[in-house]
């Protein structure tokens, strides 16, 4: 060891991070590439903005509601949430530390001037289009059609590629939604939630707040009061959504909080794959992001929800960065429904996020695949809840946490099997890897079983992963540990590779990681 004058123990003032032997060099390099100095999305778009008055009062709530010309019931919903929020205390149970947030120091609404929703892409200011182009998010359908490689491809090959419809949210408003017409032909409603409130008020009213009620928790209640924009998706009975849907969230304005609300409904037998990407400029201040995502899957429906979260994490000294307090929950309301969460978490100064599944319908399935990488002074407290209510419900949790620098990475999860969840199954595996001796990895799983015929395993017997696959790999002379790694990695990789190109860039970097040398 060369640092600290070759002494064995290096002290707190030493900035060099030692990496123990046995940690895969490619993984160290991959984590290094995710350090904040390599953050490529940190630019600021210079555009004139409309703001709500700074701070949060009942008037702010009325202002947002009026801006969006909302019906009375929604204003009431917001006001009720706001009043409740005033009585709540910020939760402190997560393993994250940050200075007290001054909720009056933020703008709760920020929109590019004259953005009442641009009628066509031609009306969208060039600055915004350039922003998305720079982030690699094509908003022009022609560009999308050609894929990101663009001109090099012929139109014919491009057409065979899966296309992605994008809803682009810039601070508090949705600025563009692509492929709406084509989706409409299939019966799929894909628009910003503000528009949906106007065009499909009954649908929104029927489902809004039914998965994450306005009373759920401090941040969800705040969101219910001030949510600005987000995406609304409704896939009708029996329809397999013809393309991937996505939303790209961009926070741009200074001192602004983003509070988007996403509501996705897959009616009986429907299928939809939805992707979410997030970036923000590099700023010295901390910005607030408190989103709510609600998914509803009816009988035989399936929703796949993928996230590449790359909010600005703050610099290596912990200055700036996004506070990401997100409530995401899916309700497998119908029999044989399925909700699958995939997340790649690399950004944010603080992450507080537990995408969950309420497995209400009989034979419903919940999945959670997560890779969380923390660097610098990042703190991530993330995991999932699988609430088994219906008969023969199944859930699977695969979580990998990689900590580097001086960061802390916590997996916090709950598997709860209720009294009526006959024959429920869960498999959980969480691995942690520490790169260097100044970071932390923590695992806090809660497992509640109220059924004798349930089978719950938390990293119990690796062979349960899939005995057939494991046998297949092992009989080719590969050791058990390696075989498990291969299968877990293979599985996650398979999921990640389903992300379209635009989103796969960050994710691809993570594919190089291995968990050799993991601590538990």
């Amino acid at each position: 060891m060369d640092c600290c004058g070759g002494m064995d123990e290096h002290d707190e003032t030493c900035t060099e991070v030692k990496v123990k032997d046995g940690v895969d060099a490619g993984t160290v390099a991959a984590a290094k590439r995710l350090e904040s100095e390599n953050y490529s999305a940190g630019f600021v778009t210079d555009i004139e903005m409309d703001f709500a008055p700074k701070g949060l009062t009942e008037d702010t709530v009325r202002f947002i509601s009026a801006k969006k010309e909302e019906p009375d019931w929604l204003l009431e919903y917001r006001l009720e949430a706001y009043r409740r929020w005033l009585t709540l205390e910020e939760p402190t149970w997560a393993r994250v530390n940050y200075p007290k947030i001054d909720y009056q120091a933020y703008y709760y609404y920020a929109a590019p001037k004259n953005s009442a929703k641009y009628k066509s892409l031609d009306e969208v200011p060039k600055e915004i289009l350039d922003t998305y182009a720079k982030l690699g998010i094509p908003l022009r359908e022609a560009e999308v059609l050609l894929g990101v490689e663009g001109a090099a491809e012929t139109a014919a090959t491009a057409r065979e590629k899966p296309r992605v419809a994008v809803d682009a949210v810039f601070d508090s408003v949705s600025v563009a939604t692509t492929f709406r017409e084509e989706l409409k032909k299939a019966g799929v409603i894909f628009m910003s939630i503000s528009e949906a409130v106007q065009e499909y008020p009954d649908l929104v009213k029927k489902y809004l707040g039914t998965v994450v009620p306005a009373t759920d928790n401090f941040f969800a209640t705040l969101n219910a009061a001030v949510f600005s924009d987000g995406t609304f998706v409704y896939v009708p009975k029996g329809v397999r959504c013809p393309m991937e849907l996505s939303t790209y969230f961009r926070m741009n304005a200074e001192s602004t909080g983003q509070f988007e609300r996403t509501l996705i409904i897959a009616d009986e037998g429907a299928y939809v794959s939805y992707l979410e990407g997030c970036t923000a400029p590099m700023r010295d201040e901390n910005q607030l992001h408190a989103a709510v995502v609600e998914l509803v899957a009816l009988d035989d429906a399936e929703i796949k929800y993928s996230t590449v979260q790359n909010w600005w994490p703050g610099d290596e000294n912990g200055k700036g960065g996004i506070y990401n307090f997100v409530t995401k929950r899916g309700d497998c309301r119908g029999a044989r429904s399925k909700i699958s969460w995939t997340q790649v978490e690399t950004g944010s100064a603080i992450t507080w996020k537990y995408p969950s599944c309420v497995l209400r319908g009989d034979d419903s399935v919940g999945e959670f695949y997560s890779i969380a990488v923390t660097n610098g002074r990042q703190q991530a407290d993330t995991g999932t809840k699988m609430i088994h209510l219906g008969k023969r419900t199944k859930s699977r949790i695969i979580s990998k946490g990689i900590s580097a620098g001086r960061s802390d990475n916590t997996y916090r999860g709950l598997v709860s099997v209720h009294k009526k969840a006959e024959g429920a199954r869960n498999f959980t595996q969480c691995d942690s890897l520490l790169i260097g001796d100044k970071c932390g990895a923590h695992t806090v799983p809660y497992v509640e079983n109220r059924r004798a015929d349930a089978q719950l395993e938390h990293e119990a017997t690796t062979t349960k992963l899939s005995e057939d696959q494991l046998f297949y790999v092992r009989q080719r002379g590969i050791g058990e540990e390696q075989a498990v790694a291969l299968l877990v990695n293979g599985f996650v990789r398979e999921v990640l590779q389903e992300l379209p190109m635009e989103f796969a860039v960050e994710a691809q970097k993570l594919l190089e990681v291995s968990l050799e040398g993991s601590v538990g």
Partner: protein
Amino acid sequence: MSTALKDLIRNPTVAELELVARYAALKADARRERLFEAFAQTGLPGRRAENWRWSDFKTAVGQLDTPKAPPARDPLARDGVSTLRFTPAGFVAPASLPAGLRLLAKEDVQAMGGAEEAPLGALAAALSGTVLVDVSAGAAVHLHMVFQGPGAINAARVVFLLRPGAQLHVSESHLGGAAFSTALVEFTLNKGAHLHRTLYQAGGADEAQAVTALIEQDEGAESVQTVLALGARIARIESRLVHRETGSKATLNAAYLAGAGRHADITTHVRHGAPACTTRQATKGAVLAGGRGVFQGKFLVPRTSGQQTDASMQHNALLLEEGAEVFAKPELEILADDVQCAHGNTSGALDGAQLFYLRQRGIPLAQARAMLTEAFIAEALEGAGELEEVLRHEAQAWLSHVS
């Protein structure tokens, strides 16, 4: 009672008021006050405290009346082994003590580290005197301790100091018979000392029991702990262990069997405060309808000092009938990178194929279930040495009684 005392605990329950009254009647002492205040911060801990969410003493401890049922029989009692008795009426010393062991019973209170983290331990200390036991180096010393009623409150505290190279085999029977029993047992293991602790717990359906152990280990010290818990209306066996110096080793095994109306909680907290220490932990449980098993394990590996930690935690539980509940939280907090920490947790029913195998050999279902359950929990009792057979016998008796 003065208003100041009444206000110590927010919204006190009947039981908490009774505890405050008990405390007020004792001789004033600054250390006693300090410990009672540590308890009073939470009062009887319940759902609102994260580490007690599944074991709610606040709700479970009602009127502190002497239970109708007598204390359980003591399976660990042996002839020729000196026995310390802790009852609601006070401490009873044995007629003779083995060589190498000195004992001092004091009425006043001794300070306790980390009282806020162990509210029921702090309560035990605040409501009792202190029994100090000093074990010097030499041949292994055997000692037995019994905690039992009858009475309303049984609070006891015993503090062991194992001198360098000392060897202590201590068995403990927590047999209930009081509405609320809380015991604090502390062990300091000096360099190379060896502790062998075997604990049996049983209690009635209207009794609450808490056993808090604080174990600190110096260089090269080793402890092996084996618990068999049958639960009570609510029962918690909590062990908080600190590896203070290099090369210390600990084995923390436990089995719990919870029948109808019984709640058994095994909670452990291990701090790897020095490099190259080892912890092995295996907890097995079996629960019947109307019973609840709780396992909470935590390994804490601090930055720098926790390097080369080797620790593993395993909890496996059987829900033998519908209506049984098992709650588990196997937790790791790791701040050092050159460590091995593993944890595993399973819960479910007996393997149908194994049951079928036994039944088709003519073994009745109830017996087959008992055999498989016994085999399942046996691993957790293996470390009990000469007392392993006794514990296994108790487990068998429980299984034959219920199946």
